[in-house]
């Protein structure tokens, strides 16, 4: 088994003659936090959609822990422990925070198709759900209906729900987008905390977050990989500076 938990080989996506992703070979090391950055329209979201099978690839392969998952349905991939979050917050708005997390936990119970059982049978999951909520600092919101929670807390809840599946790898699409500074700090801490024993691949424009958090960075432009390396390496790469930052100092790009 290689060090890489996820690999793409020559991944390509054409949209009616427009190549949004071309020949991307990406390697994500187990246990790392890996960032995907690049100018707008570079193809980051598309790469994400391809990896999670929300879009079919035109050509190329996706390999997760040595298995070719290119043509697997999304739910099956998810059950391998490979979970994504969405660019816009994805919770179940009319369930309480506790119930949200329980949805994640329920799969392990194996009773998801039991329509003849009482839902009281789910209460055995409450303790576990509560401790997950605690881990993201949401214990006080346990019986709040999600729709009434502040935005930043919803993102945290989403992460807690994802954690309930105990995923080996998480994909986060702009996890801090639309957040205030305070929430950003909270989410960065959270990501750091949950990254132990997990691999994280994220798209992020906020370079302070990236520099703070990420072990490895891949820069995309126009659908192809422009550069890869640690934050320091990448931020010194003149091509990256020109294409992405538009000045000669990466720090200008911090919010």
């Amino acid at each position, binding site marked *: 088994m290689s060090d890489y938990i996820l690999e793409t080989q020559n991944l390509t996506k054409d949209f009616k003659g427009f190549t949004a992703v071309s020949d991307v070979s990406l390697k994500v090391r187990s246990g790392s936090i890996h960032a995907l950055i690049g100018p707008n329209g570079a193809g980051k979201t598309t790469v994400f959609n391809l990896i*999670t099978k*929300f879009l079919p690839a035109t050509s190329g392969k996706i390999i997760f822990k040595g298995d070719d998952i290119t043509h697997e349905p*999304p*739910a099956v991939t*998810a*059950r391998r422990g490979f*979970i*994504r*979050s*969405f660019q816009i917050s*994805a*919770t*179940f*708005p*009319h*369930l309480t925070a506790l*119930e949200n997390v*329980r*949805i*994640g936990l*329920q*799969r392990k*119970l194996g*009773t*998801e*198709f*039991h*329509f*003849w*059982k*009482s*839902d009281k*049978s*789910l209460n055995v999951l409450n303790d576990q759900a509560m401790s997950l909520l605690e881990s993201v600092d949401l214990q006080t919101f346990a*019986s709040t209906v999600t729709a009434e929670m502040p935005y930043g807390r919803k993102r945290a809840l989403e992460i807690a*729900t*994802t954690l309930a*599946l105990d995923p080996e790898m998480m994909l986060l699409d702009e996890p801090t987008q639309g957040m205030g500074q305070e929430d950003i700090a909270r989410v960065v801490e959270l990501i750091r905390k949950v990254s132990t024993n997990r691999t994280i691949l994220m798209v992020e424009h906020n370079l302070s977050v990236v520099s703070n958090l990420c072990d490895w960075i891949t820069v995309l432009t126009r659908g192809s990989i422009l550069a890869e390396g640690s934050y320091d390496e990448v931020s010194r790469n003149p091509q990256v500076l020109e294409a992405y930052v538009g000045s000669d100092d990466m720090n200008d790009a911090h919010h």
Partner: protein
Amino acid sequence: MNYTQSQNKKLMVLFAVLFVLGLAAPYFFYPTFLMKVLCFGLFASAFNLLLGFVGLLSFGHAAFLGTAGYVCGMLIRDTGLSPELGILGGTLAAGVLGYIFGKLAIRRSGIYFAMITLALAQMVFFIVQKVPGTGGEDGLQGVPRGNLFGFIDLDNNVAMYYLVFAIFCFGFFLIYRTIHSPFGQIMKAIRENEPRATSLGYDVDKFKLIAFVISASIAGLAGATKTLVFQLASLTDVHWHTSGEVVLMTLLGGLGTIFGPLVGAATIVTLQNELADKVGSWVTVIMGVIFVLCVLVFRRGIVGEIQALIRRSGVN
């Protein structure tokens, strides 16, 4: 937690009261009318399970009601099966049909789902009309009620009533249970945010399919029972108007409420029964006005409005 517990207690009390009322009802009301209300109430509840709790608008539910009715009627009349087996057979047939519909329609969503179910139901209509033995336009007439388990004479209206009541309670409880089950919990999640549920590893289509089959089977149970009550299955049962009517019943009673469909069914059945004779051809106009008002003013439906009223007075 406490709040929901006391809610639950209230609900249980309500169930008990209604159950007792249901037992006493045939001594105060015309049993055949009550049976019609119960059959349509069950049908609408089955429909509500899909629309109100899963978010799928099926515009072809009459196909299940009708198919089960015809199958049950033919089994009893033409092969001499006992009433309980006839009902079982009808229900199974609706379940199988539900599986086929589901397989074909489930991947579509929103209005496309509604339309594909409508189209499939139209085909069922056509088949029922054409297949020999259904009686075509005349309907399947003269189905004997027979003896339940060989010794309860169902020609007695009161006996028949208690059978229908028992069937209704069973179906209704099954729906209630499904909504409040681990399965129901996932269904709710799917309705709220489908992509998210997929990304958590749930096979969304499979859940919807199961819900669809449950709903179709219960609709079938209602249809088979209805055939036994009226000793007749007709093209009306498979006509798209019936599919539309069940939407109206559910909405009028209160979409996504437990009792709404029953109340809606009772209201519409009563209106049709009573109004038709008093106002003649204006009945459609009056029905139209009711729907318009219901949509413009009482959107939550009868039960929904009452619930809202109670909640508001409870808060104050």
